[in-house]
């Protein structure tokens, strides 16, 4: 799909973010610029500690004290809002609520239409029959699906996912990739997903944003021009993967020179 002609939904420019630890300033993000178009699926890949999760948290409105601008629909992001849905690495479902109650947790209003939306989303993520189950009764994959349903039940402008499948086993992960494709096709949501799994990124994304380490900044962006459903073993898929791998390999090699 080509999203080059749709409008910009998220615009980040000149973003800087520091952390303070023991009176030292640790730069996390430096002069980061990113434009995301409506309906795009963006995967942000980078090593651990490169600031990719911090970037996502800034977009979610969970982090303050940054400089630069983060505009959502041309309005500066000021704290969290229901126009953004968030899925964390852990499912973070409320243990005292059933699947259905968890998904309905964030509803901005409660009426017959919103309760229909809850049922629709339970069906969309394939949890029909588990409405009354409690989180501890679910498998890791099912819990994460409930968490995705909770994030999109208000039909947010953007779905933000922070390594959502990082804790799942390889088989469940591949199954979840199909689910996400399906959800995205139905909901037509813009998706920004942070991951350290290059394979996952190439499989899902319209654009893969590669971040470099300390301070985090955008190293390169790849537009993945392969139609869905993608074949993980096709020549072009492997080629993209190789090129993105190359970005990290170069970086790792230089840092390893010191060790040897």
């Amino acid at each position, binding site marked *: 799909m080509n999203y080059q002609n749709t409008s910009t939904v998220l615009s980040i420019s000149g973003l800087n973010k520091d952390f303070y630890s023991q009176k030292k300033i640790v730069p996390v993000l430096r002069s980061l610029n990113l434009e995301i178009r409506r309906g795009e699926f963006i995967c942000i890949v980078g090593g651990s500690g490169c600031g990719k999760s911090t970037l996502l948290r800034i977009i*979610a409105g*969970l982090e303050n004290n940054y400089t630069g601008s983060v505009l959502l629909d041309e309005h500066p992001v000021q*704290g*969290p*809002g*229901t126009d*953004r*849905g*968030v899925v*964390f690495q*852990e499912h*973070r479902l*409320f*243990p*005292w*609520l*059933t699947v259905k109650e968890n998904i309905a*947790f*964030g509803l901005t209003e409660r009426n017959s239409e919103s309760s229909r939306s809850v049922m629709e989303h339970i069906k969309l993520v394939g949890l029909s029959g588990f409405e009354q189950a*409690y989180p*501890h*009764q679910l498998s890791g994959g099912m819990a994460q699906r409930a968490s995705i349903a909770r994030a999109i039940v208000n039909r947010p402008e953007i779905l933000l996912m922070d390594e959502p499948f990082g804790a799942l086993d390889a088989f469940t992960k591949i199954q979840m990739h199909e689910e996400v494709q399906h959800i995205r096709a139905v909901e037509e949501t813009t998706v920004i997903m942070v991951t350290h799994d290059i394979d996952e990124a190439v499989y899902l994304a319209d654009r893969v944003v590669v971040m470099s380490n300390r301070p985090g900044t955008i190293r390169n962006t790849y537009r993945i021009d392969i139609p869905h459903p993608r074949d993980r073993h096709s020549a072009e898929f492997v080629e993209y993967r190789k090129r993105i791998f190359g970005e990290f390999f170069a970086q790792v090699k230089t840092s390893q020179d010191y060790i040897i």
Partner: protein
Amino acid sequence: MNALVGFIVPAILVGIWELLSRVGYFPPNWLPAPTVVLATTIDLARHEELLQHIGITIYRVAAGFAIGVAVATVFGALSGCSQWFRKLIDPLLQALRNIPSMAWVPLFLLWLGIQESSKITLIAVGVFFPVYLNLMSGIMHLDIKLIEVGRVFNLKKIALVRRVVLPAAMPAFITGIRTGLGLGWMFVVAAELMGASKGLGFLMNDGQMTGRPAIIIASIVLFAICGKISDMFVVYAGSRFLRYKEN
């Protein structure tokens, strides 16, 4: 069936007790037979005297418990939610907690007199601490990640406390309430032994003074029954909030 297994050993012990009392191995002025205790209880109940004693004791526990829980909930919630409030008030409360509860008795008697208010205050003090401590630590050890989910959905402070903080702290709160209720029953005995003209504790004291062990034993059994029933009631009320933990 499994529930009945627990009754086997007590039933055997009561049987042996009955037998040994009957044959005179236990002197009646020392340990009367279970059937004698039962007969004494029925006799007391027939004169409506017993119901009055039980009623006043339950009233004292209930009033002290209600006051203790109410005050502890406010303080526990504030100490749990606000670091500032905790720093201000928690050291004092921790210090007061270390005072043996019986040490308050002379002071409460002096301040509040021999009537109901000194007894109820003593019980409230006993109930206060476990409820306060459990609620505070329940809130303090909340999973910050769940709070963040609340923030993601743009919940404001009060909604966050109502929909995330309180339900998450509920198991600890209920544990505190159960412990508090147990202490409430303990303290009512102490309060009534010290000076009362009615109540199960008074009945025990009276049994001791007049050399009637059957009355003392009957009172002990009644205390146990009242304590167990009230605990069951709390567990039942709490299970509504904790049903998610069942399998």
